């Protein structure tokens, strides 16, 4: 499995060939190349498509880079955006490593965001700020977890395909969020339906003198924590066994049903935390029909990172910059930000192709994609 290559590089093949002095470094380089190659290929092919549509790809990429990473304001925005993406990614890592397709992140994220947006303004004033924020964050995580419970139970009890059930719950969650905002939580003083706004000074504290909020720290802790738990603890190992081979997990005496529910709960709770952090850190409110649909971005990102937490951090920075820069470019260069979706799809295609070429080499037995089949 590729994740093992990342943590325990292929010492076996290096020993047998005998020619390589530093197998760890070589394996790391190979792993980095396997992440960078799909991105580079996607940027090239996407650039050709832009050329065909009559836009200068180099100017576009240059603009995105400048606005997304090089300008201080853009960098702040990029780093701020990393918080929800990282939390969603850490949730997905848990599910994917356990071999479970949690494709319902959008619904889990949004319902949790609405929950936090409803609770925080209602409680603020009555309770100290830290407590309000803590309650809102936990409530968001809880609602996210609850929204995954039905797919988890159906999978655990009856083996019902979780791809379909999580997707259905996601659509349901998105609509339910809108219903809640429009019918229940609506702030009467605004024209566009939205929840009551949390004042800026009541939101998550900002880091140093930037606009980046402390949710980023929560997210970084979550990603690294998940990586540690999945690779270094018994619970993580159980989930990995479940993901690698369900029959083997049963034979090993693991309580598969309980593990499935646990993996889903943790996964969706982290995603829900992402929704809460985004609301409490950035917006302070949720507008009707707001749906960033981060899932379609983060799912490919997590694959690309081969479910590795550190790789996720680096890739999240890249994708955030792409989104921040892409939004500016939509206004200035005239390339809609939907172009990012095309890039993401191309990354996925090239990623799958490169894994295919990799698999044809005899030394590589299995891949992330293979283990998730």
């Amino acid at each position, binding site marked *: 499995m590729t994740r093992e290559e990342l943590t325990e590089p292929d010492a076996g093949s290096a020993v047998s060939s005998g020619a390589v002095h530093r197998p760890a470094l070589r394996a790391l380089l190979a792993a980095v190349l396997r992440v960078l190659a799909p991105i580079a290929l996607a940027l090239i092919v996407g650039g050709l498509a832009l050329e065909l*549509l*009559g836009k200068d790809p180099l100017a576009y990429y240059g603009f995105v880079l400048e606005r997304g990473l090089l300008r201080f304001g853009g960098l702040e925005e990029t780093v701020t955006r990393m918080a929800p993406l990282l939390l969603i990614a850490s949730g997905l890592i848990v599910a994917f490593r356990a071999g479970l*397709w949690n*494709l319902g992140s959008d619904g889990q994220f949004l319902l949790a965001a609405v929950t936090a947006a409803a609770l925080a303004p209602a409680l603020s004033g009555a309770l100290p700020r830290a407590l309000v924020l803590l309650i809102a964050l936990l409530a968001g995580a809880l609602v996210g977890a609850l929204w995954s419970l*039905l797919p988890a139970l*159906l999978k655990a*009890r*009856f*083996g*019902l*395909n979780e*791809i*379909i*059930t999580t*997707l*259905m*719950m996601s*659509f*349901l969650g998105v*609509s*339910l969020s*809108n*219903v809640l905002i*429009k*019918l229940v939580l609506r702030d009467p003083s605004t024209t566009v339906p939205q929840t009551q706004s949390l004042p800026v000074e009541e939101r998550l504290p900002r880091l140093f003198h930037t606009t980046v909020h402390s949710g980023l720290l929560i997210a970084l802790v979550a990603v690294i924590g998940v990586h540690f738990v999945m690779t270094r603890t018994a619970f993580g190992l159980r989930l990995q066994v479940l993901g690698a081979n369900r029959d083997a997990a049963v034979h090993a005496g693991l309580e598969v049903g309980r593990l499935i529910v646990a993996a889903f709960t943790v996964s969706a709770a982290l995603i829900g935390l992402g929704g809460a952090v985004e609301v409490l850190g950035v917006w302070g409110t949720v507008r009707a029909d707001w749906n960033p649909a981060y899932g*379609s971005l983060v*799912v*490919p990102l997590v*694959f690309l990172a081969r479910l590795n937490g550190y790789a996720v951090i680096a890739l999240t920075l890249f994708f955030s910059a792409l989104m921040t820069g892409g939004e500016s470019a939509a206004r200035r260069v005239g*390339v*809609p930000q*939907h*172009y*990012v*979706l*095309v*890039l*993401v*799809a*191309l990354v*996925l*295609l090239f*990623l*799958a*192709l490169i*894994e*295919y070429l990799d698999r044809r080499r005899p030394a590589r037995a299995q891949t992330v*994609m*293979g283990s*998730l*089949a």
Partner: protein
Amino acid sequence: MSALFTHSFLIALIAGAVTAGVPLLLAGLGEQISEKAGVLNIGIEGMMLLGAYAGFVATYATGSFGLGFLSGGIGGALAALPVLVLCIRLGLNQIVIGIAVTVGMQGLTALLHYFEFSREYPRLPAAPVWVLPGLGQIPVLGKALFSHNALVYASVALVGLLIWVFRETNIGLDLEAAGQKPAALDAAGVDVLRTRGAAVLATGFLSGLGGAYLSIVGAGIFVPFMTGGAGYIGIVLAMLARGRPIWVLLGAMLFGMSLALTTALQLAGIDVPTDVVQMLPFVVVMVVLAAVARHSMLPPALGLPYARGER
């Protein structure tokens, strides 16, 4: 409540159910063909979107609805090509590629629409309606069921055709074998990959056709992301129908009706936010899935690539 049962309400509800149900029917039938052959085609949302855009552009440019449907089908089949090459031929993960197809087509159609129309959403003239002779004169039902675009009747006829193909023909048997026991099909001298490839192209064509109906007949405009999960409902319909086309038809009408309920209720003077009604089909799906969860609904080889001589 008496307003609920007026003629105009019933006509709006049933006719709306047909209009909303036809894209689901076509997508569901398409997905059923793939699933029968052992391919979990999760990218049909993207195929529908390219079909919707291609169909819209063709009709907008030429004024011909027939050409629009044809382009929609071809667009859908084109969007299915990555699945054909990468999943069937190379054996790559069907879910990863399916996600890529959907995400890519969402981005591509939004991009193409922007470059062609900027921020405008031109409207097509109303699609031609074919009132069935005799049946069209029945009160209420005539207007509700028998005054539709020709593609509606063709889609229903397709249900009959597929029932026959699945049950009576070698093509149907080959498809079934490709999903149940591909090695046996291979041993019988039929190319598994070609069978599955043809199934995937048929899925793409039908999904694209459904998308085209959605944009040029159902809505009359193209809006990026307009399928809004219709492809996924198609997948669910195919799962629940367990290989039988008639159940896809019934399911599509049920979902179509829950989608049409908003408009019909508004006609009856009851104002419900669309979001409430949009939840209905998904609630129905979850309830049905939970109710029949015990029974296995999918072919054993679903989602697994076939490579000769493996295992």
